[in-house]
């Protein structure tokens, strides 16, 4: 045990003496948290829309106003022709175009049915899908009102229909930051866990001190513990720090017991540290270790449901995420903070995490041969 104490003392001295480490631990996370929270904003509001009104009647004006009053769309231009609107689409000025055809009002009354056209710039597919969805809803609402007004249709006279009502739970204001910030915290903790720990071990290899340690009676397990424990502590500290910043700056909701977040993070970090350790056993230089870690992390993070929901992956990819530790932590931290999930809800995920930790660290330790 005393050996570990000396190893820890040495690691902390080295970490805090390294001038580039302090900003990495304290400054970069805050900047990252702030920038990412504002940048990673998929809140689709104020989409710019072109309305080509070839009818020019009262109803088409009402439809236009209803769209722009919704908060989702802001009117960009009202070009005279579809061609002109296309140019706006092309230049990126407009995200979508609503084309109201000539004789809109007349055809609606005469044929009981009329089509309006929505052209959506779909290069960003998810944005386009939401934009079309919003616009469709607004047009549907408008349609209902027109019916009521024009036909003075009583509810009782209408054919049988479903009355669907919606409730948005846990985030009624649809604040996207509440959703993103906990996820970003996961990224921060992950970076510290996997990147720094791996590089730290490889550094000893690179400067040759590892050989000196290998001839000492230090046990494998002590050495590894001494190497990983500091980053475990720093990462947990980082989490507390990030949560505080999140609370102060974004007024992040903390519905559940924050203790569960820390408990889960503690287990999750064991997995990430194991990953760092494993990578350090197969690399010789810090550069290599950084590249490889980066490669894995970017896949883990992109497939974690952090930025794009897991629900939008094909089933085979959803299955793969069952092996992605980042996905579990992202899910759990959001569950606890936004929905107030407790022990009964997270215990299964915690078990999975511990299983990962044992497996990864097992492989890493087995791979890490003291006799080089």
């Amino acid at each position, binding site marked *: 045990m005393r050996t570990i104490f000396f190893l820890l003392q040495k690691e902390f001295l080295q970490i805090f003496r390294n001038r580039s480490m302090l900003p990495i631990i304290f400054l970069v996370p805050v900047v990252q948290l702030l920038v990412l929270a504002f940048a990673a904003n998929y809140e689709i509001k104020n989409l710019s829309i072109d309305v080509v009104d070839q009818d020019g009647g009262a109803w088409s004006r009402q439809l236009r106003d209803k769209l722009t009053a919704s908060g989702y769309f802001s009117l960009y231009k009202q070009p005279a022709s579809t061609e002109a609107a296309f140019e706006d689409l092309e230049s990126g000025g407009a995200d979508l175009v609503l084309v109201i055809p000539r004789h809109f009002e007349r055809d609606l009354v005469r044929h*009981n049915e009329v089509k309006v056209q929505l052209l959506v710039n779909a290069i960003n597919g998810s944005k386009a899908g939401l934009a079309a969805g919003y616009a469709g809803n607004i047009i549907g609402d408008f349609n209902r009102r027109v019916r009521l007004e024009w036909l003075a249709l009583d509810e009782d006279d*209408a054919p049988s229909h479903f009355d669907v009502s919606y409730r948005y739970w846990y985030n009624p204001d649809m604040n996207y930051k509440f959703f993103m910030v906990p996820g970003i915290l996961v990224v921060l903790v992950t970076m510290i866990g996997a990147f720094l720990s791996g590089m730290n071990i490889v550094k000893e290899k690179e400067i040759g001190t590892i050989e000196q340690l290998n001839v000492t009676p230090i046990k494998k397990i002590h050495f590894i513990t001494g190497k990983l424990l500091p980053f475990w502590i720093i990462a947990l500290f980082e989490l507390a720090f990030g949560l505080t910043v999140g609370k102060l700056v974004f007024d992040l909701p903390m519905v559940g017991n924050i203790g569960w977040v820390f408990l889960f993070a503690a287990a999750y970090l064991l997995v990430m540290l194991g990953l760092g350790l494993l990578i350090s056993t197969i690399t010789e230089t810090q550069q*290599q270790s950084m590249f490889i870690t980066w490669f894995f992390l970017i896949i883990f993070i992109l497939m974690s449901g952090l930025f794009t929901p897991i629900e939008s992956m094909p089933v085979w990819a959803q299955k793969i995420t069952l092996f992605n530790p980042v996905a579990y932590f992202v899910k759990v931290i959001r569950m606890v903070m936004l929905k107030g999930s407790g022990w009964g809800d997270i215990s299964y995920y915690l078990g999975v995490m511990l299983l990962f930790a044992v497996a990864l660290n097992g492989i890493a330790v087995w791979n890490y041969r003291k006799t080089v």
Partner: protein
Amino acid sequence: MKQFFVFVRKECYHIFRDKRTLLILFGMPLVLIVLFGFAITNEIHHVQIAVLDQSRDSYSQRLVQKMTASRYFTVNRYLSGEKDIEPAFRQGDVKMVMVIPNRFAHDFFHEKKAAIQLLTDASDPNTATTLINYANSMIMQYQQELTGELKLPLTISGEVQMVYNPSLKGVFLFVPGVMTLILMLVSAMMTSITITREKELGTMEILLVSPLKPVMIIAGKVIPYIVLSFLIALIILAMGAWVFAMPVKGSLLLLLLECILFGLTALSLGILISSVTNSQQTAMMISLMGLMLPTILLSGFVFPLESMPKALQVVANAIPAKWFNIILKDVMLKGMGLRQVWMPTLILCGMTVFFLAVSIRKFKIRLS
């Protein structure tokens, strides 16, 4: 000139001997594109829902069947009462709860109006909205089935046309993004690291006392990386075209030239970084924090620029990747020519010249 080629060859040896790094350099774009292309779609798949069916008549059961028959939803569980809703959400897998009230069929046929309640877990607001859109349209279809041909009078229907990317493929957004990222990684990060490595190992001094001019040394070091990054860009384009049928609507020549231009911009950034740092680790950190992160965050690659606060949008203008991304999307997907993309092109040229000028100044200060 011969000495120069000897030098270039030495640099190539360095690159090709480090198999692991090379594997990652070529493997990363492939994996990223495959992931983005296949794994990240804009449809929902098998979202787990819970059903609270208080009516339990054949009509409510048919509605649930209809929901699950689509690939969009699977029923995770049936709830027995309202008190079960909250725990279902809290457990984490259930994203939506459909509540069908008592006397569902009776209400529909006799009262002409049956209520359905959709509760969503809006901790992810966008997914919640999407789920409701999907569920709503399926409920409407079911309604149509029940009422038969009977159509509501005065129907305004929206006909949606997805322009530039009719099938909503995510890969269209990501191919340009990955390309930007990789070019930045190879050209800027690798060069800055390789130059500082020579400084660190002391081999730079040996090179500097050789009869080669310093400009030649730097050129010799970066040329292999230009070639490498160009190769990778070609691979990404080819993958995009063949595997994902991503079109190159504009001129291919223009596209390739723009790739080289951006490669040069990234390179000049790499040289700039190496001129202000002395250790590999610092170079790595600066490249990672100063180049890679902004490239990912603020280039419009992953996150739409327009939903960012104004301040970030302004900052994004200083990021070369943003302009390159615009060029790529315009040329590949919209089929624009130089006439339309001259502005971002000019900006990239300007940035390259600026970075080179600054780094030459820095080098001179160092030498004198």
